């Protein structure tokens, strides 16, 4: 292995060490471990801790959104039910969408990626550990902020898409929409700093030798989603800010007399459609990485699948108008966006055929995780073809805003996000906790969810074709929808039972699950080379990578090169990891990583105070929030001379 070069004049050759039972583990543990107690809990920057918090928090929002859905399904089980008032129903369906799309679907993937990225890449942390902590604290603050409005009966009530002018002050005078707008801006800060962190981590924190054609597909998925978020989130943050200005100060960005209501839809969907891909591509990556493990062979078509991930996202920025086919835009424009919306099927087809070929070319082992990953292919295809149908303008003019689209979005979000996520829980739970989930309960869990989901959501296609509109709090008998709605409601409760089985399995297995060991599935990627759960420093020495499947090299025996996992860079003078070149993964710098700090937590508190005060126009408290933010930032950026190594190693910022 060539010695890493540094940009400094007084370059040094870092120590290369071999791992033994008591070296260098204990020393690194001392350096990397978060101090116990309350202070440590609030100040940790360990990506694994943050990742798990993301996963647990997102799952709580999934459960809240799920309960909201069940209440709505009771209301809709029969025509003319009066369980909910129209206003209650409107807040419920809005909060259901907000919870699932903003507070569950994206953060759960951030959680997995936060936990897994450094382990997959052979690094000891993310590029900016403190930003990582900030991203989590701001996320939970935004979630609590929006839910606080809902709990006091002032939750968002204009749909998660929040069309003006219904969401304007004139038609919606309460504080509901302001809660939503400010909450989304806050959440956008979290998403943005998280995305920047992933992009830089991808570019610089891969292990030596891990060129970009050797990273797992999950990395491609999250990277692509992160780049998309950096480009897309500003559109919605801007839209929210402008609407808040309209509502608070009487500006006229969106009103019909001096502004343009359609501007909202353009800004919202310029964000909204790329976002849909951002919340499925990392989950598709989980399938691309998990499925081959159980098929006992590498993924078929790594390069086409990686390229199609990026291609989906690129096309994903050119399809937002398909949410607006009925708004009266000119036919030429509609034809363009219709074409783009149909063509975007292609990169998805690449993935589907790659997965199918992987099954046919492999020797599938039916573990629960495999069942979730494999069934996702089928659900993906169902959600894909219904999207293909709505991409055709004349067809969409009938389908749009009916239950057909409700079916479509749930096949996409549950089929391509939740099924892979539950599969990923079965797959990586042993890494997170050291214990396997019960396979017996797992099989029950899978079939209950799979049958419940299809029973609950497939008939929605039929309801849509029979003309049932979306977002109705009730419907009349005599429309031909009664029986189907009852079936849908029963299916949704069965599906919820499946989620309950998952929770039971987790609760039991946390204490009594079989011990997993390092690599229970005989999987190929780096996270399986470290103990379960991984130590605070991840890797005792930084591994050096020679192929896409470092742990399968002996079995595949395709070249004579072998990745070096037990011998590598020691980097034990403080929290250190290695930075490598962007494409080839050549080592270039030793990074000194920041220690635990309360600054991100206090910064998030300051932001929360600022936003909450802005809601009530309490400007003095807004100022107080700004002062806390400034103080936290000063503490954050305060130069730490002591951390600057004397030998020219570059301090990493975080």
């Amino acid at each position, binding site marked *: 292995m060539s010695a890493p070069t540094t940009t400094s004049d007084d370059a040094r050759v870092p120590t290369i060490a071999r791992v033994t039972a008591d070296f260098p583990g204990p020393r690194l543990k001392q350096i990397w471990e978060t101090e116990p107690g309350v202070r440590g809990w609030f100040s940790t920057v360990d990506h694994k801790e943050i990742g798990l918090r993301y996963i647990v928090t997102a799952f709580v929002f999934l459960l809240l959104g799920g309960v909201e859905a069940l209440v709505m399904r009771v209301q809709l089980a029969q025509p003319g039910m009066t369980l909910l008032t129209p206003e209650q129903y409107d807040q419920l369906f809005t909060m259901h969408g907000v919870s699932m799309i903003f507070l569950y679907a994206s953060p759960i993937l951030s959680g997995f990626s936060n936990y897994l990225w450094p382990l997959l890449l052979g690094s000891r942390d993310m590029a900016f550990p403190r930003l990582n902590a900030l991203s989590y604290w701001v996320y939970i603050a935004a979630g609590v902020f929006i839910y606080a409005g809902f709990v006091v009966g002032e939750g968002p009530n*204009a749909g998660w898409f929040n069309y003006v002018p219904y969401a304007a002050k004139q*038609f919606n005078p309460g504080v509901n929409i302001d809660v939503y707008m400010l909450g989304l801006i806050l959440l956008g800060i979290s998403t943005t700093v998280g995305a920047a962190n992933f992009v830089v981590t991808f570019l610089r924190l891969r292990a030596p030798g891990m060129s970009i054609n050797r990273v797992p597909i999950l990395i491609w998925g999250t990277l692509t989603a992160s780049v998309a978020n950096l480009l897309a989130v500003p559109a919605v943050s801007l839209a929210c800010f402008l609407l808040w200005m309209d509502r608070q100060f009487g500006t006229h960005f969106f009103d019909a*007399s001096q502004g343009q209501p359609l501007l909202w839809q353009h800004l919202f969907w310029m964000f909204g459609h790329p976002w849909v891909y951002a919340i499925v591509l990392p989950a598709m990556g989980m399938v691309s990485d998990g499925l081959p493990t159980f098929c006992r*062979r590498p993924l078929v078509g790594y390069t086409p699948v990686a390229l199609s991930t990026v291609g989906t996202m690129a096309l994903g920025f050119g399809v937002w108008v398909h949410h607006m086919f009925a708004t009266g835009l000119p036919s030429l424009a509609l034809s363009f966006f219709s074409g783009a919306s149909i063509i975007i099927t292609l990169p998805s087809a690449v993935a589907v055929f790659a997965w199918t*070929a992987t099954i046919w070319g492999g020797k*599938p082992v039916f573990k629960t995780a495999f069942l979730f990953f494999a069934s996702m292919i089928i659900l993906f295809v169902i959600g894909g073809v219904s999207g293909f149908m709505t991409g055709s303008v004349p067809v969409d003019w009938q389908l749009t805003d009916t239950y057909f689209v409700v079916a479509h979005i749930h096949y996409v979000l549950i089929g391509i996000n939740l099924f892979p996520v539950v599969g990923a829980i079965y797959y990586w739970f042993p890494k997170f906790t050291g214990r396997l989930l019960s396979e017996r309960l797992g099989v029950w869990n899978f079939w209950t969810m799979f049958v419940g989901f299809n029973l609950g959501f497939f008939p929605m296609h039929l309801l849509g074709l029979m003309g049932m*509109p979306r977002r109705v709090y009730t419907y009349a008998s005599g429309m031909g929808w009664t029986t189907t709605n009852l079936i849908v409601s029963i299916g949704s409760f069965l599906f919820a039972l499946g989620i309950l089985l998952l929770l039971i399995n987790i609760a039991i297995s946390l204490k009594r699950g079989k011990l997993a060991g390092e690599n229970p599935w005989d999987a190929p990627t780096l996270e399986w080379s470290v103990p379960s759960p991984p130590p605070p420093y991840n890797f005792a020495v930084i591994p050096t990578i020679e192929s896409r499947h470092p742990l399968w090299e002996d079995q595949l025996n395709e070249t004579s090169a072998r990745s070096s996992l037990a011998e590598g860079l020691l980097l034990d003078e403080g929290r250190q990891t290695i930075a490598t070149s962007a494409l080839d993964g050549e080592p270039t710098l030793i990074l000194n990583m920041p220690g635990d700090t309360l600054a991100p937590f206090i910064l998030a508190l300051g932001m929360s105070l600022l936003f909450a005060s802005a809601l009530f126009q309490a400007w003095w408290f807004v100022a107080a929030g700004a002062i806390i933010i400034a103080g936290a930032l000063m503490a954050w950026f305060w130069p730490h001379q002591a951390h600057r190594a004397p030998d020219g190693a570059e301090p990493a910022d975080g």
Partner: protein
Amino acid sequence: MDAAPGASSFSPAWPLGYLTTFGPRADPATTLTWGLMDISVAVIVIITALVVIGMLVKRVRAPAGEPPPVSRGGAGLNWIYIGVALTVLVLLGSMIWTVAVLAQINSPSGKPAFTIEITGHQWWWEARYLSPRPDQDFTTANELHIPVGQPVLIKVMSADVIHSFWIPALTGKTDTIPGRVNLGWLQASRPGVYRGQCTEYCGEEHAKMALFAIAQTPADFETWREGQVAGAVAPTKPEAIMGAALFSDHCGACHEVRGTSAGGLAGPDLTHVASRRTIASGILPNTTAALGGWISDPQTIKPGARMPATNLSGPQLNAVVAYLGTLK
């Protein structure tokens, strides 16, 4: 009360379904919908079969806990090449078909007979029929009549928030956007009653914002039109005369009955309300009982509706209902 004169009692099996349609604006899209749906079902069946058969055929039952060894087992890239090539062909065909249908239904083949301005309100529909002679213009609500076989131009607008105009048997959706006028057209190929519904979420009573298009023979339509152009006929029975006065006092600020002092514009025009099939935007049949119930307590039937409960005694209520019954 009477159904619209001469209208056939035909209605689609699913009132809001669109897998069978009844007009040249909807029909080509319906054929396209079936076509794309057939393709979609075929794709689902093929891929599901491939995945399930692959899983079952290739499954190995490893001895307890020992995963079978890894091997590359054939490149398998041909799956991607062939699959994507077939997908490209299907997608290109679908795109061409889509654009062809779009061009076909964009505008009517013949000259439109007349224009209807349709305005969405929270939560009802206003329809203003325009005629070359301004004195022949008239306004009605929640019920469109059109002559069979003739294209009719529609201008779709909003009085408040965004709604979406949709009569699935005749046409797909057109959003009503404040500050804009969207154009469309309607044509029915057979007489019948076709249900419509607002499909853009517009507030509490979005669910209860239906309307009907009633397609009639040109002769029946002309009879209906002439009836609508005329003002209200003054009531003759004492109870109805009393009702007319009460209506003016209690209802006239929001509702218009042409030819009387009731001239409000906030709610639906009721000049010929007795000739309509339904009330309250398609949610109640137009019967004496339903009308009485609606007037006395609209907030139970349609919570949040803009119409307040009316403070009328029993006999007064009966008088107003009797008066409205004369407005044919």
